[in-house]
């Protein structure tokens, strides 16, 4: 119970800080808006249907990277990470708290992107509940990797270079799985045709959540 308190307080602090400074959400939304505007003037409507899943995950994926890259920066101001190290509680719950906060912000941006795609690129939304499920699973995969690598690189001088270098190659399974599943959903294909991609995303999310939870104690103490 005490461990879940930890998760609650991290989430409370991250949401309150974001409401006050709006740093992550505003930068992500403006970046996403720019990408969608560039897409809308670069491609003709006839090309878009085939390319739509790739465009969605290019916009969503890189927008998420923008937000995730600064996930642990606030923790370094006034050496707040040191306070986490001094806590007697399991550090994995701190990871889960940060993960939940990051996931929340990414999903908010992801859901805000869908109407923009409808408005600017003429996206025809089918099977909305499954599309939201893919956005959630993809966001969880990216949030997992982003939270882990943001924590790993936060004290390094080359953080800005190392973070995308570590994150992007390992995100390939998320991008492929999410893009393929989105393509199936937007084609209106039966669920069985893209179910295996959802399974891939789910397994990836589970493995990285458990691995990161276990590794975080070591990351924080070292």
């Amino acid at each position, binding site marked *: 119970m005490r461990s879940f308190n930890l998760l609650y307080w991290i989430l409370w602090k991250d949401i*309150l*800080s974001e409401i006050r400074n709006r740093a992550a959400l505003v930068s992500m939304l403006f970046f996403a808006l720019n990408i969608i505007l560039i897409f809308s003037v670069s491609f003709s409507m006839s090309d878009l249907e085939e390319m739509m899943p790739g465009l969605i995950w290019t916009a969503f994926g890189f927008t998420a990277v923008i937000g995730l890259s600064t996930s642990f920066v606030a923790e370094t*101001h*006034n*050496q*707040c990470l*040191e*306070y986490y190290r*001094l806590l*007697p509680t399991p550090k994995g719950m701190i990871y889960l708290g940060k993960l939940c906060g990051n996931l929340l912000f990414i999903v908010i941006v992801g859901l805000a992107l869908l109407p923009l795609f409808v408005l600017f690129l003429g996206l025809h939304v089918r099977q909305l509940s499954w599309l939201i499920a893919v956005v959630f699973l993809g966001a969880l995969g990216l949030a997992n990797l982003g939270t882990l690598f943001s924590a790993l690189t936060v004290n390094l001088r080359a953080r800005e270079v190392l973070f995308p270098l570590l994150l992007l190659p390992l995100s390939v399974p998320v991008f492929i799985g999410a893009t393929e599943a989105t393509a199936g959903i937007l084609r209106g294909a039966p669920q069985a045709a893209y179910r295996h991609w959802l399974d891939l995303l789910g397994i990836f999310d589970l493995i990285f959540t458990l691995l990161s939870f276990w590794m975080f104690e070591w990351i924080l103490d070292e």
Partner: protein
Amino acid sequence: MSVTAILGVDVSKSYRYDLVLSSISLKVARGECYTLLGANGSGKTTLLRLFATLLAPTAGTIEIEGHHSLTQKPEARAHLFFIGHASHLYDDLTAIENIRFALGMRGISVGPSEIKQAIDVMGMGPFGRYKTRHLSKGMQKRLAFAKALLARPRVLLLDEPYASLDEPGIETVNACLKDFLAQGAAVLMSSHDRAHAAAVTHRAGVLRQHLLQEISPSDLPRSYALF
């Protein structure tokens, strides 16, 4: 019989090939305040960070309330509270919100009246509602002590507790430390402010050339020559 709260036996620390501390042995009992003195770079902060479990000793053993600092970290950490040079504050939260967060993370639930009381004791008054980005270093130090007051640790580790504080602030901190000591907490602190430290110190030692040399607390105000 006095009960040992902080124990270090033959503690050494090296950074790569640079020796910082050599075979330091130190025992602080409950209700006792030990003050570390020494020139800049003599290893005071390193020694405090070793006892705070933030660093691992190269050799020797450290125990906090009987719990080994390496093999029983969570148990040792449950008893200690460290106030160092960093404030551990989130700039976008108010002082009160920072207290709620810090204590919540330690599993301590406190009501608004208790927080207000701690803030008043530390002489922060209306600053409790200010975002901490707007607080001076002195107010941030008072806030750190307000957190400690509510956390009620058995071991208090303080790195330069009087730094950035004005005279009333120092008096408030010393009153707060006397209260901690009266309730049986052990205090290990480093300070350059020997005159103010003397008011709460029971035992003292000077770190010089990697070694700790114990001195009489009555020598504290004129101990500069020992550096």
